[in-house]
């Protein structure tokens, strides 16, 4: 029994020790709890919120692009997307079978859907097809009870109602590439499209808008439980262009199958009304990612459908360049307006013979006549008299040989050669013969249709250095300018080129004769409507060398040549001849003669432009105000 009592005492002692140990361990737990829940609580609270809340970006609707009359050139179209939520579709195969009876569903789509279904978690929607037709949507909606897990989602895709007609101008949107990532999370959205070319690219930031955000509560698998807050995005700004889509579409249609470009411009404001380039392409094809076949087709086409020829096509201006040469000669003071030459069909310089396009020669011509007939000998002569540097200087004043800063990517500067240029670029001295070649717009000279239209506009508006622009000079803006009176007007005015009006008159009379004198090179492409007469200059630029042997046996006709060797047809003009409003430049690549091919297109497009001219409001007032300043300057 004593032993038992010892045992009991020892037991009690040890029980106390054990209890103490347990108390210590419980205290450890309590201390740890205090550490986590009080001292470190803030940190864990943040982590818990990070776990719980996902920030989702809402893509803003892209801004529309409108023409001057508010026609939509680029809009957003509802995109009906068919999706399946796997966890709500007990049997995917059966559902797809039923769907294929309702809508077109290729074997390829089917395999992709089944693959996605296997990869994704059950609540992640899998896209079955995009861009459903309305009838297809209706068929699916009616059969929803038999299609568990199938839903129609409405998204937005970019849509270009005019398709090919404005493709180069507007550009297109496409999936954001790795290079275009700027760290803006909006660009990471799979549905986000970025402007890849044309206006879409230049004004991308404006058109994009600001993303909305939605805070959603998600569970550990990423499933959305509920939306906590939502801030709608700001839709992209609308961009209103100076383009008149009807003129643009007409120009595109008029060029037809040809490879070429048309530029129509307001001679007073520089607003571009049409900027057409053919062949076009389908900008809508780029939205979802272009198909390989279509891309290959575009790349292989020798007529370069992806190039905007109006701003990036560089051509020898041919005889249209004679306008710049004439003005350079008159302004130099070395050639008087009454200067004449006698054309016998060729001109000898040293031991080289330079030919006129007319084999028998034109006889005696003054400058007006030389422009009207486009006599090469006259321009050889005056070019030789003034030298290439003066020609180059005037060409640049008229807008050639430089990037004019139209709001489009890919504008090319062209080439206006002078002696320095040749030494710098080719490291060769300038030959006098090259001055003669430059005098008729051949040789090194290259210009874009946009530059040629600008040149015509600057001649037509009385020597104001207008620059082309694609955005509209807003009518209300104009009205305000007029309302404020005379002082405000110069804000809109362009710098004067300081060309003597009487010299410009020589050119204008010559250009009028080109189109309106029965012996003019473009008489057949004149505008007959009274008061709307056109004044222009034809050009035919040679793309191959005519050999001496060929000249003797007779120059081959264009139709007999392969397409690539045919001449480019050009025409620059303005109208109405007596109160210039619009300038136009047309080029048809390898089209043949300027008078036969380019001039009729220019005539038709110009006529359309004049018909659509709103003879109303502030725009006319501005014109009159400008005309007034021109006249007062002339006094």
């Amino acid at each position, binding site marked *: 029994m004593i032993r038992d009592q010892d045992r009991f005492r020892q037991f009690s002692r040890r029980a106390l020790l054990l209890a103490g140990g347990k108390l210590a361990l419980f205290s450890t737990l309590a201390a740890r709890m205090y550490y986590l829940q009080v001292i470190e609580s803030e940190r864990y609270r943040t982590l818990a919120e990070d*776990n719980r809340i996902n920030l989702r970006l809402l893509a803003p609707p892209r801004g529309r692009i409108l023409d001057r009359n508010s026609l939509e050139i680029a809009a957003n179209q509802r995109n009906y997307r068919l999706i399946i939520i796997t966890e709500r579709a007990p049997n995917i195969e059966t559902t797809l079978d039923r769907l294929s009876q309702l809508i077109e569903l290729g074997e390829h789509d089917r395999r992709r859907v089944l693959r996605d279904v296997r990869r994704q978690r059950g609540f992640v929607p899998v896209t079955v097809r995009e861009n459903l037709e309305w009838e297809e949507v209706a068929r699916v909606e009616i059969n929803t009870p038999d299609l568990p897990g199938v839903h129609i989602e409405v998204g937005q895709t970019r849509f270009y109602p005019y398709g090919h007609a404005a493709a180069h101008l507007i550009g297109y949107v496409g999936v954001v590439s790795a290079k275009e990532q700027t760290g803006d999370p909006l660009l990471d959205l799979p549905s986000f499209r970025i402007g890849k070319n044309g206006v879409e690219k230049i004004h991308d930031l404006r058109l994009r808008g600001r993303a909305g955000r939605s805070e959603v509560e998600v569970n550990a698998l990423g499933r959305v439980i509920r939306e906590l807050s939502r801030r709608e995005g700001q839709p992209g700004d609308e961009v209103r262009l100076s383009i008149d889509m009807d003129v643009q579409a007409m120009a595109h249609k008029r060029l037809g199958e040809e490879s070429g470009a048309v530029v129509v411009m307001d001679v007073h404001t520089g607003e571009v009304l049409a900027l057409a380039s053919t062949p076009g392409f389908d900008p809508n094809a780029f939205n979802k990612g272009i198909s390989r076949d279509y891309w290959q087709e575009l790349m292989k086409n020798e007529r370069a459908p992806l190039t905007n020829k109006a701003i990036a096509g560089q051509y020898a201006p041919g005889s249209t360049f004679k306008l710049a040469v004439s003005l350079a000669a008159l302004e130099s003071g070395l050639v008087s307006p009454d200067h004449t030459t006698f054309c016998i069909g060729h001109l000898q310089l040293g031991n080289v013979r330079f030919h006129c396009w007319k084999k028998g020669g034109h006889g005696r011509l003054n400058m007006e006549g030389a422009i009207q007939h486009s006599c090469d000998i006259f321009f050889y002569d005056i070019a030789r008299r003034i030298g290439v540097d003066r020609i180059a200087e005037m060409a640049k004043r008229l807008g050639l040989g430089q990037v004019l800063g139209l709001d489009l990517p890919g504008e090319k500067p062209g080439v206006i050669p002078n002696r320095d240029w040749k030494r710098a670029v080719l490291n060769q001295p300038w030959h006098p013969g090259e001055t003669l070649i430059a005098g008729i717009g051949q040789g090194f000279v290259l210009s874009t249709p946009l530059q040629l239209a600008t040149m015509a506009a600057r001649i037509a508006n009385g020597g104001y250095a207008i620059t082309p622009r694609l955005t509209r000079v807003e009518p209300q803006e104009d009205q305000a300018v007029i309302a404020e009176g005379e002082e405000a007007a110069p804000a809109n005015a362009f710098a004067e080129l300081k060309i003597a009006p009487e010299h410009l008159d020589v050119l204008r009379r010559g250009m009028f004769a080109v189109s309106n004198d029965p012996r003019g090179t473009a008489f057949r492409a004149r505008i007959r409507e009274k008061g709307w007469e056109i004044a222009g200059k034809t050009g035919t630029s040679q793309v191959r060398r005519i050999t001496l042997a060929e000249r003797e046996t007779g120059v081959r006709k264009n139709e007999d040549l392969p397409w690539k060797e045919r001449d480019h047809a050009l025409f620059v003009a303005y109208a109405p001849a007596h109160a210039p409003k619009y300038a136009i430049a047309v080029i048809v690549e390898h089209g043949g003669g300027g008078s036969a091919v380019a001039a009729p297109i220019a005539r038709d497009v110009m006529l359309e432009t004049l018909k659509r001219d709103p003879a109303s409001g502030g725009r006319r007032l501005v014109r009159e105000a400008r005309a007034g300043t021109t006249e007062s300057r002339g006094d």
Partner: protein
Amino acid sequence: MLSGFYKQPEMTIGQKLAEMNWGLVALLTLISSIGFVMLYSAGNGSFHPWALRQMLRFAMGISILIALALVDIRFWLRYAYVIYGVALFLLVVVEIAGDIGMGAQRWINLGIINLQPSEVMKIALIIVLARYFHSLPEEAEGKLRYLLWPALLALAPAALVMRQPDLGTALMLLMVTGAIFFMAGVRLWKFAVAIGGVLAAIPVAWHFLRDYQKNRILTFLDPESDPLGAGYHILQSKIALGSGGVFGKGFLQGSQAHLNFLPEKQTDFIFTMLAEEFGLTGGLALLGLYGLVLVYGFSIAIRAQSHFGRLLALGMTATFFLYVFINIAMVMGLVPVVGVPLPLISYGGTSMLTLLIGFGILIGVNVHRDMVIGRSPRMDGP
């Protein structure tokens, strides 16, 4: 047979019921009710799928508790080796033919319930060790060779459980054994030697651990090393606890638990959920209630007249303590993740049953506290 070694007159059922610790029963019911509330929350505000079933199990368990509390503790003394033998046999059976569950062989499917022999062993080992030390002749006390047999009694099931593999339960068996050895009066220097031996054996033991067990230990040592992999559970658990703050996010408002960031929220990590929704306040309150249960356990152990009763009561209390400590320490990242449930609160029939059986025996010790039992049952015969 039983009446053969009764010294005291038999107590009536009524007397026994009156002697039961109803306060402890109420306390256990209260803790279990907290469990129901948490399981209701874990079911996203629904009695399904967990809370209702847990309530039914508790009702069943509490009946068994009352029934076992009435059983004379000499019954456990007499059949200690039989009970231990059956438990050991069942462990061997699962080893041979056990179903695969959770990547480990732990269950015997009896059709109605899944029997977990390791749980049976937790009780059986306490009973058999209590009997051994109770019956140890006086002259044997303090002699090393008399510790070999009880050590073997503990190591055999621990090794089998380890093979399942269930590291947590194996360690619990060994720790309870340690507690009983300690209470039985084994000299402290022997513990020191044993602990030294265990530390020396760690590098050897490391080779016998399964990969996932090694991972768990490594993850415990550096949970942030692999936040999406093995460290995920413990990291999310700490986030849930910490974000609960002092007063918690409110009932049914625990974002970590309800959005499934918290793993196993209805079983092993239910304490985390409680601490997320009710904060430090709720966590400490529960810890307090558990502490109160331990106080009951110790007072029963101290008041028991028989050495067997004391060791039995203390063994049960120690087991309960280990459950509580390991589970809470685990969810707070203090010990590696081992699958030990939070007693009376975690969803699961087997552990609830084991615990209530243990408490039944504990209360039984209190009911029969004044019983004087001789060292050898056979020597007490008339």
